[in-house]
Each structure stands twice: as structure tokens, then as C-alpha cells.
């Protein structure tokens, strides 16, 4: 019988803001543990939250073998890889002082606005070890700022949001960015003329969600993906490269999947120069459908590893947004909530908050509107590019992505 242990330890301090003042401080200390045992092509798992002994969990895992859950795949082994991505970290007091400074400055500069939510400092440890010599450890710490912005004279629940998620949070740098962002928020602008205009996103969640479905190996193999049958075919604009990317520097996730698989450089190219190279898979999907194994198993600490989604990332393919616009006015979307793709790839979404944008500066806030396009237009003829940018420093290495889209006023 082979044995594998999983430990996840999360600690967090959060400073919670309500009505532009600190209302609460929250501390978390949550441990999650699991033991997996493998015997005769079966897997048994015992898991719990809290300080439960490993022996107790192992006993549960052995009992769980009776459930008869098949796992006919070998386990990983012979690899020790310990990585620590922790850099800057706020103390509890430092975090409160940072939030006080941010609120003090924003309240003074923007008396017409109200702020809520807050600032967090999180630290995480993921460890996976097994009897075949696998010994993986990932440690990380990051700061997360999430402020909802509401106009005091407005009747919306909130009107905009400012976010940061990363390891190098700098209060003064953030305040400079917030100043530009909120000044533009209070400036009214008109939608650019024309039915189809350049629209930029801080990576569109609906698009990544839809691609997660289309590039899922199981959906691909069973014929239910929009991309089924198109491996090795050109599917998107030739500038587009999409990776399954587990590099913690970028993805803020462990560099190994829930089966303990580590890929070279922590990434696998799924789409390269517009051509479909791979779909993402776990061990089961790769073996069942004879697909390349990409190490995309997911699931909770005490779940049987399985395939659901993968951390996808567009590789930046352009640098200068203003040059790509060539003087044409554009839109930068700050808040779009509720958009969706139909099964055949048509996309529609309301845009609750957006800016007029010249590629360098935010020129004012636009009235609400809707956008319309399709997957193959967005990633085909209407694709403008994926840009590394410091215009909106919402993380340490932010990306902006642009498409020409139909505007419904």
C-alpha cells in the first residue's frame, strides 16, 4: 500500500472597511489535512480541517478503500521541490496602518466617494509527500486590496472597484494609481462613435471561463467542446498563445497539481501562435482518451483528484497600446458583471463601469452600455492584443487585453 499526505495551512489577517472607516479586524488560522492511500488500483482518502492526527486520517483512508474508488494510475515520486515565494509581508499592525493611510488619503481627496471592503495579508503553505519519494512544498504570502467605490449621491449599491493582488504592495504607489483612477471616475465622458470600437479588459473572466470549458480535455474528447476535432488546427489569431500556467509568480497557485504533477517551467502551451496544440488533462482523462497529460488535476484537499478547470494565461504579444490604437478612442472596462457566452460562442454582457481610454490615460467615465461579440471574432479578426501594462497595477505583472466589439448603447 502506498501513502500520500496533503497539508494546507492558511493564515490571514484582514482589515475590514465599512462606510470609509475600519470596522473590523479578522484573523484566520485554518489547517486542512488529508491522507491518501493507494492499493490494488483503488484510492482511499481521509481528510479533515483542524488539528487531527495523521494516524486517525490514515485509518479513515484505509477504511475508505472499501468504497471501491478506482485509481489505476501510478503516483508521482522521486522529486523534492521546495519553493518559497514569500517576499514583503505586513504585520497585523502594519496592515491596519496601511489601511488607515489609504482611507485617510482617499477620504480627503475624494469626499464625494465612499469606500468599503478592505485589505488582507494572506500566507499559505501547501505540502504533498508520499511513500514514493515525492516531497513538494509551496509557501507564499500576498496582499489583497479590494475596495468598493460608491458615489455618495448615487443610488447604486456600488459604482466601481479598485483591486490589488500581489506580493509587492506599495501603499504610496497604490495611492498614485487610485488618484488617477478615481479622478477619471468623477469625470464624465461620452462613448466613442461607431458600432464597433476597441474595448480593453483586465482579462475577461467570462472569456477565461468559456476557454476553460472549450480547452477541457474531457469535453474535447467527448465531442462537446466547441473546439472538438481541432487539435493541430489554426483556431485563433496567429498572435495568440494560451498556456496552462502554474508558475506561482504569476498564477498565485502551487506549482503542482492535486496529483503532485510538476511540469517543466510550470507551464504547458495549449494554443501556440493561434494553433491548438493541447487540451488540458489530468491522469484519468489523458489515459482514457489518449491525450497528452498536462498536469491539470484539481479538487479540494480531501477530494479524489479530477479534471475541472486549469489556470489559463494569455501570453503577452504586444507592448504599446497607444500605438495599436493609432489615435482611435477606446474603452477600458472596469466592471462588467453577468456576461455570458452561448454554447456556440456568442457573447453578450452589460458593462457597469468603463472609461474612455487613449491607450495611456483614463479620460473619463462612460455611461453604462452593453457589449456583443463572439469567441472567434474576439480571438480572430477583432483581436487587438494582450499587453503588459502599468496603466492599471491591479497585480505585480498586470495584463490588458483588447478586442474590437459591438457596442449597444
Amino acid at each position: 500500500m502506498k501513502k500520500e499526505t496533503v497539508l494546507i495551512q492558511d493564515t490571514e489577517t484582514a482589515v475590514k472597511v465599512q462606510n470609509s472607516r475600519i470596522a473590523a479586524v479578522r484573523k484566520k488560522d485554518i489547517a486542512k489535512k488529508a491522507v491518501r492511500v493507494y492499493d490494488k488500483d483503488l484510492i482511499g482518502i481521509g481528510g479533515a480541517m483542524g488539528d487531527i492526527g495523521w494516524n486517525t486520517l490514515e485509518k479513515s483512508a484505509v477504511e475508505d478503500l472499501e468504497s471501491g474508488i478506482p485509481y489505476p494510475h501510478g503516483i508521482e515520486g522521486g522529486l523534492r521541490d521546495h519553493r518559497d515565494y514569500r517576499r514583503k509581508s505586513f504585520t497585523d499592525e502594519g496592515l491596519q496602518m496601511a489601511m488607515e493611510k489609504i482611507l485617510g488619503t482617499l477620504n480627503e481627496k475624494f469626499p464625494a466617494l465612499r469606500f468599503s471592503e478592505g485589505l488582507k495579508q494572506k500566507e499559505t503553505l501547501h505540502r504533498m509527500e508520499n511513500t514514493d519519494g515525492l516531497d513538494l512544498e509551496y509557501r507564499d504570502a500576498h496582499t489583497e486590496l479590494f475596495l468598493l467605490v460608491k458615489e455618495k449621491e448615487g443610488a447604486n449599491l456600488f459604482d466601481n472597484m479598485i483591486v490589488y493582488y500581489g506580493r509587492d504592495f506599495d501603499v504610496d504607489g497604490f495611492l498614485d494609481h487610485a488618484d488617477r483612477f478615481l479622478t477619471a471616475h468623477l469625470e464624465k465622458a461620452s462613448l466613442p462613435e461607431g458600432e464597433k470600437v476597441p474595448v480593453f479588459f483586465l482579462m475577461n473572466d467570462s472569456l477565461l471561463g468559456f476557454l476553460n470549458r472549450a480547452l477541457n480535455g474531457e469535453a474535447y474528447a467527448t465531442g462537446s467542446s466547441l473546439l472538438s476535432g481541432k487539435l493541430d488546427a489554426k483556431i485563433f489569431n496567429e498572435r495568440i498563445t494560451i498556456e496552462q500556467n502554474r508558475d506561482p509568480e504569476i498564477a498565485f497557485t502551487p506549482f503542482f497539481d492535486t496529483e503532485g504533477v510538476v511540469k517543466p517551467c510550470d507551464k504547458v502551451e495549449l494554443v501556440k501562435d493561434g494553433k491548438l496544440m493541447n487540451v488540458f488533462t489530468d491522469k484519468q482523462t489523458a489515459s482514457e482518451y489518449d491525450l497528452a497529460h498536462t498536469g491539470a488535476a484539481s479538487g479540494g484537499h480531501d477530494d479524489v483528484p479530477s479534471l475541472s478547470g486549469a489556470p489559463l494565461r494569455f501570453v503577452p504579444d504586444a507592448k504599446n497600446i497607444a500605438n495599436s490604437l493609432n489615435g482611435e478612442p477606446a474603452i477600458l472596462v472596469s466592471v462588467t458583471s453577468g456576461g455570458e457566452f452561448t454554447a456556440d460562442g456568442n457573447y453578450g454582457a452589460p458593462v457597469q463601469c468603463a472609461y474612455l481610454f487613449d491607450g495611456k490615460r483614463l479620460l473619463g467615465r462612460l455611461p453604462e452600455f452593453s457589449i456583443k461579440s463572439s469567441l472567434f471574432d474576439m480571438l480572430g479578426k477583432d483581436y487587438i492584443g494582450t499587453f503588459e501594462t502599468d496603466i492599471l497595477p491591479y497585480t505585480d505583472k498586470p495584463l490588458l487585453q483588447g478586442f474590437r466589439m459591438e457596442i449597444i448603447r
Partner: protein
Amino acid sequence: MISFPKHLYTDVRIEEIVDTRIRFKRKKLREQKTRRNKGAFIRVFDGERWYYGAVTDLGKLQSHVDELAAMATPVEGIEEHPVVKALEANERKEIRFEKDSVTKIPLEKKRGLLEEVLAFADDEAIVNTDAFYVDNRTMKKFFSSKGADLTFDKETTGIGITLDIAHGENKDRMSTSKAKSRFKDLKDAKGYFAEEIEKDVDFVKRAMPVEGGEHPVLFSPLATGVFTHESFGHKSEADFMIGDETMKREWSIGKEIGPEILSIVDDGGVEGSGLTPFDEEGTAAKKTHLIKEGRLAGRLHSALTSASLQEEPTGNARAVDFTFEPIVRMTTTYIEKGETPLQEIIQSMDKGYLVDTIKHGSGMSTFTIAPARAYRIENGEIKEPVKISVVTGSVFETLAHVEKLSSEFELLSFVGGGCGKMEQFPLPVGFGGPYTLVSKLKVQ
């Protein structure tokens, strides 16, 4: 026994959770487990700030309480603070599910029920299935320095099934789920899955592109529930109004915001996903009319918001689990039933769409509903299925466009999702209502 620190308000919520998860992928067993977890959430209040702690090592509860208390500033007379005064101090043991608890049902029976439901997925167009059975028993204990001493339970049991359907060039992923408070009621709901699977397959095989624009939209009870939740429910959560004079003016009690036929209720006492016998502050469940006959009649409160707005607490301070603090959330929210038979409503429509099931919804200034199954209506008849990406409307205007409510009415509960608010997702909620005709919404 917790020793509460002096001159501070303190409460402790302890949760003991037993849950089961059984999962089949492509009709093969992939997971079958029962887990037991324990954790606690501690709150300390000094009149200025709250200090929260989420912990899993219950043996050290007292030291966690003391650690949080050390961060606070003790205030003599804290019990006279308006927020503390608004907190209820109920002492009760209310165990309603022990007799036929899901923990007493053998795993084989749960697995057998899931296999029976999966057997309905036999159409050749179904190329992949992912089905799960889940149940959850949560025992909660709540103690406060004000004297609250509560022990109560909550149970949910449910099945969810996701189908990948491919028929020629028509492909889609369809999901359906149902939750009940008791296993025997879930067993009785098998027929629901058979009907839903059949409708999903038919939809994918025949769905046509939609003609976008502004149209009348008829919502099913399920879609009505999401519409109510997203278009209005979040607006009724009073934490958005603290210290906000504009919001208080805009949402003043008595204001007319819909037609006279429209009444909206939130009720934490309804069994199902939204059941909240006591909220996470120990306040007992209440039935709250948010809109009565078209006029704003109430809103949802925690102790903090009720003290701030000088209204009665409603038992709506909820948290997704023991790792989060309570914030104002809905429980089971619904539109009360109308008087017009569904058939009569359909016959009255020249053109429009029926939204039958949904993928998701969201609500800001513009609310959206992403339909899963939708149908065109013409000359009083339901026609072919249509693919709609989103239906959108303004939360400020749409309720005024509610035109008809059916006499048919249904409350629903689900597993595998829930309501999201800021960092807390997914919170189980219940919703539903009658079939609801809205005279104009944007369809894309």
C-alpha cells in the same frame, strides 16, 4: 465553558459538520466520502471595532478569545451600546432533523438514488455526465456574553447533474440540481430529473439563435427567484445603507417601486437551502415583507444595521461557514403568487421569450440573467428553443415593468452553487415564486 472578557461583547459560534459527497463521472463512481469537520468563529466588540477569529483547533478556544480581547479596548457599559442592545439573547435547543437525519441513511441508499437519477441520462446525444449526491448536517452552538445559549441543527440533501450534450453542430453543457431538507423528499423528486434531462436534450438539439432587442420576458418560478434575488433582493440588504443618506432616501419605506400585484418576502423559517432558524448572531428567523403591494415595506438586517437604521433585526446576519463573519444576506426570497393562470399569461403574449432555467445571475445597477433554457413565444404559444446569452435590465426600473404574476407558485432549493457577496460564496439560499411577466427587458 468560555470565560467572556469583561467590558466587551463577545460571541462564539461552533459548527460541527458532517457531510457526504458521492460523485459519478461518465456513470463511473469517482468519489464517495463522509467527512466530519469542526470549527469556530469568535467575535469581540468594543463599541468601535469588531475583532474576529476563525479557528479549527477548538481545544484552544479560550486563548483565541483572550487574544482577540487583547486587541480590543474594554468599555464599561458596552451592554448599552445600540448594536449590543439590538442583539437577541435567545436560550434554546432546537433540534429538528435528528429523527430522520441524513447521517442515518446508509451510503448505499444515497448512491443508489444517484444511480437511479443517472439512468435517466440515456439519450445518445448525452456524451458525458458528471453527477453528484451531497448532504450536510450542521450542528451549531452559539454563546454570547449577553447570555445567548443556542443549539440547533440544519440539514440539506441534494443531487446535481451536468450533461454534455452534442447533436451535430449543436453542443452545450446543461446542469440541473435539486435540494431538500430530508432524504425521503429528495427520493420523491426523481421524476423532476427525468423531465429536466429530457427538456435539456431537446433544447440543445433544436435551439436557434435569438433575435436580440427589447422584448417582454416571462420568467419561470426558478427564473423569477433569480430575478427577484438579483434585481431587488441585494438592494434590500441594509449594510449598503449604513451612513448613506442617499440610499436611505432612495429606498425609504413606503416608496412605490412596483405594481400593486407585487409583494416580495424573505423568510428564514422556510425549510430548504435558505433555512436559518437563528442567524449567525443568534437572532431568530423572521418573515420580512420587503415589498408589499408594490411599496417598499422592509429590509434585511443584522444587529449592526438594525441599530444604525433604527429598525428591528430580521435574522439575516449569515456567513458561508465558520471561517467568515456574518454579513447581511438573504435566506429564502420570493415573489408572492398572483391570480392569473399561466396559460392565460402565455395566451396574452404576442411576442416575447420564456426563460425556463438559468446558468447564473448577477445584480448591480444593471442586473443580468444568463438563461440556460429559453423559448420564443409568439401569438400566445410557446415556440422553438432559443440561445440567449443574457437578459438584462435596470434594477431601478424593472420591477415597475412586472405586468402579470401566475397563480402557479413554487419555492426551490439547489445544491452546487449559491449566492455570492464580496468574499463570501457560495451561501445556500432558497428562492422562487410564480411565473412572472416583465413587459420589457433587453435580450442578447
